């Protein structure tokens, strides 16, 4: 069982309400979910869609053929009708679209009329639509009713009852009218606590929260704003300070100031805002101040496609800066990895007193996944700072004292008689300005050369999924994990195929723990898949290891890879490369 529902309409029509409700309903029913969104940079009007896929096995990406299209406007009808699978159905309201369609694939449900009847206004159209979908699948409405009660708890019983009535009416209407609906849903297994449903942005915010972030400063920018909103929403309950800065320059300098003052601090942005932060990044490097930067990629250059997706900032994250200092770059592939890698980023940033990046993109930010859960035993929290009695007992503290490891204990200023001094200028062990060559050399050794190999040993190797003796390896990084994995599942009967997925990118993984280069070299074809035009990961790989991929699949239209066209593209690429190698 594997169904895809697309909800299309204008911004402000409630696509997210319907999509969000359906996602939660299916996941609580015990099904696996994957949702993704496509929206324009506007608040009202335009054309957006929200896609919900649900299945009775774990799923990791979107498909392109639709089983149900909910067309909330004419444009959605015109644009997406062609994406229907055989036996697919378009659900619409002839009154709102002002057109009646004839044919087996059209199901007219009077969303507006029912909403007016049951709720005396049109705001319940979305609930009617959800009810209609449930009717088409012939699923019980109980769980959905409970969900409505939770959603509208604050609005009171009357609103809840009206919504339930609207849901049931939509349900009955569709069940009665949709004679063509041949959908067969596996038996629902609603076990509380079995599947967690979470989107990428929230997973990043959650990851920060469980890692002990206390201070977060940011300037709003898609696709990173969700982290700001999540943490602001949790500030009171968990004792955080979340500050909206006047610009990204202030945002990163605040995060550095917060960390210097003694708490775990982070900031978040996207490309253009990040450009403003680079000066501050270098400051974190020089002053050895731990910070975490959430860098959400969207298509550039400049303002680019504000609400769409791309993996165009990998090399930017790895190399942007004036001067040399260590940094950590992680790019999670799933919301689950978003939580764990954010936790690891906070830990390593503080352990080595360096900046750490979580590189994500709009696609990961906006897609929702079901997961078995987060294992709290895998989350780490160690307070590496020097404070309290440990600090009070010390005399003659020097913020940048030379040590064996290059790491100097990080003292909290104002917490003892010790002075904590640091400087963006080259400095001595105490933190005061110097100009001499000898101190410079020792400081570079301390903050960069000594730390780098230690950090490198903390970096995890890529993960392999698929055939252990793969002839074809599809390599990728970050948000492409889901589609790569699903593609391997689709093609495993045809080829010896595997995917090699990288999430810990800088320092580049060592080969000691797992010689992934040997795997790539052992494959007949090693194809690098990226959501960008210039093959950034492939270039990084060549630079760090000397390995050259045999082929590339790149997509840079601002949209994510969808399973079905991607599988086809892989097949074509494999055929072309095979022919080439045989010809040679």
């Amino acid at each position: 069982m594997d169904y895809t529902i697309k909800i299309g309409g204008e911004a402000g029509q409630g696509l997210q309400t319907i999509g969000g409700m359906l996602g939660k309903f299916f996941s609580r029913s015990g099904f696996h979910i994957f949702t993704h969104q496509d929206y324009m940079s506007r608040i009202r009007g335009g054309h957006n869609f929200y896609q919900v896929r649900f299945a009775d096995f774990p799923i990791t990406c979107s498909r392109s053929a639709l089983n149900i299209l909910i067309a909330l406007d004419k444009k959605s009808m015109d644009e997406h009708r062609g994406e229907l699978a055989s036996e697919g159905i378009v659900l619409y309201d002839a009154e709102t679209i002002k057109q009646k369609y004839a044919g087996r694939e059209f199901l007219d449900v009077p969303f507006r009329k029912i909403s007016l009847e049951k709720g005396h206004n049109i705001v319940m159209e979305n609930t009617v639509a959800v009810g209609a979908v449930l009717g088409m699948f012939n699923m019980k409405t109980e769980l959905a009713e409970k969900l409505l009660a939770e959603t509208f708890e604050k609005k009171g019983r009357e609103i809840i009852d009206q919504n339930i009535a609207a849901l049931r009416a939509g349900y009955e209407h569709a069940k009665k009218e949709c004679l063509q609906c041949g959908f067969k849903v596996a038996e629902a297994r609603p076990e509380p606590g079995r599947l967690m449903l979470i989107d990428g942005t929230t997973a990043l915010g959650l990851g920060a929260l469980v890692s002990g972030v206390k201070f977060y400063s940011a300037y709003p920018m898609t696709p990173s704003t969700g982290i700001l909103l999540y943490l602001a929403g949790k500030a009171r309950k968990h004792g955080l300070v979340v500050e909206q800065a006047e610009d990204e320059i202030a945002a990163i300098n605040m995060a550095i100031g917060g960390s210097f003052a003694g708490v775990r601090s982070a900031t978040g942005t996207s490309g253009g805002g990040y450009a403003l932060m680079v000066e501050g990044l270098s400051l974190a490097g020089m002053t050895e101040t731990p910070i975490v930067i959430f860098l959400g990629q969207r298509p550039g250059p400049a303002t680019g496609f504000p609400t769409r997706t791309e993996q165009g900032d990998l090399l930017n994250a790895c190399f942007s800066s004036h001067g040399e200092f260590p940094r950590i770059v992680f790019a999670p592939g799933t919301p689950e990895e978003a939580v764990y890698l954010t936790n690891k980023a906070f830990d390593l940033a503080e352990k080595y007193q360096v900046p750490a990046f979580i590189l994500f993109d709009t696609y990961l930010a906006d897609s929702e996944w079901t997961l078995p859960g987060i294992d709290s035993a895998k989350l780490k929290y160690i307070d590496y700072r020097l404070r309290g009695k440990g600090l009070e007992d010390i005399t003659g503290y020097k913020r940048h004292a030379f040590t064996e490891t290059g790491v100097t204990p990080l003292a909290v200023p104002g917490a003892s008689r010790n002075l904590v001094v640091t400087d963006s200028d080259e400095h001595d062990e105490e933190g005061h300005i110097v100009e001499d060559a000898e101190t410079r050399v020792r400081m570079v050794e301390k903050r960069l050369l000594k730390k780098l190999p230690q950090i490198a040993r903390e970096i995890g190797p890529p993960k392999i999924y698929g055939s252990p003796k793969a002839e074809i390896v599809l390599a990728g990084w970050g948000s492409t994990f889901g589609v790569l994995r699903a593609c391997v599942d689709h093609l495993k009967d045809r080829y010896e195929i595997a995917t090699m997925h990288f999430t810990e990118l800088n320092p580049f993984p060592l080969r000691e723990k797992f010689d992934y280069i040997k795997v790539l070299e052992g494959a007949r074809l090693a194809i690098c898949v990226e959501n960008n035009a210039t093959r950034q990961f492939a270039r990084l790989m060549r630079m760090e290891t000397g390995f050259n991929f045999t082929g590339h699949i790149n997509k840079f239209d601002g949209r994510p890879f969808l399973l079905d066209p991607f599988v086809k593209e892989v097949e074509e690429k494999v055929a072309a490369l095979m022919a080439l190698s045989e010809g040679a």
Partner: protein
Amino acid sequence: MAELKDYEGQSPAWCPGCGNFPLLKTFKQAMLELGLEPHQFLVVSGIGQAGKLPHYTKCNTFNGLHGRTLPVGTAARLVNNKLPVIAVAGDGDCYGEGGNHFIHAIRRNMNIKLFVHDNQIYALTKGQASPTTGEGMVTKSQPFGVFPEPLNPIALAISLHCTFVARGFVGDADFLKDLMKQAIEYKGFALLDIFQPCVIYNKVNTYKWYKERVYRVGPEHDPTDRMAAMKLALEFGEKIPTGVIYKCERPLYEERYPTIVEKPLIEQEFKFEEALKELETFY
């Protein structure tokens, strides 16, 4: 009890005769008289001759980037509102590179004390016009003279309802010391713009030039009268007022932010188990 020698820092790398010397001396004296020992306060500074000040005394120090002192100070206050924060910057640093932060830091009204070393020139980069350089001054980078209207930090601060706005002059050290102390003790964001001549690159605004113009504002001025303060702020020519130009009361940001009202963030331990409970909300 600290003594003046406890505030001795590195040997300054300023030019002989620099206006920063008397400023530094006055600063140390003010801190001593306030009873703020070196470990009891934090100085955040930027880049330029002014930014070096904390190295030449003793204190907790974050000497950050050009123009970026106030965001660092803002966060330090949000994280630890028990630690007094003094931001030290130059005129180019604070009013040029950091202009946006200057505006928004005043709007927030945190208990930060901003001392701007205003010599009306870029000194560390060797004599280009700063935002406060007078119109018409010829420099190597403005060979045709400075065209823009000089920035009036006092008037700008008053327009933003800055809680404490004052101007001092290093040539009137006792008065300056008193202004520093008042600024530090005032509850709210305090701007103290300090004239300190650059003896190398500013041949117009010299000790003599300032001495001929500055005067102490008398008791007839009511600094809580905003219109009177604005009028005084606009006085910049034959006569230039020094002293407390404007004062008002506004709630402190730190006292409004609910999670730090009871105790500073720094004293609140991370409750891992509490945070983990958030996981339950996703089922």
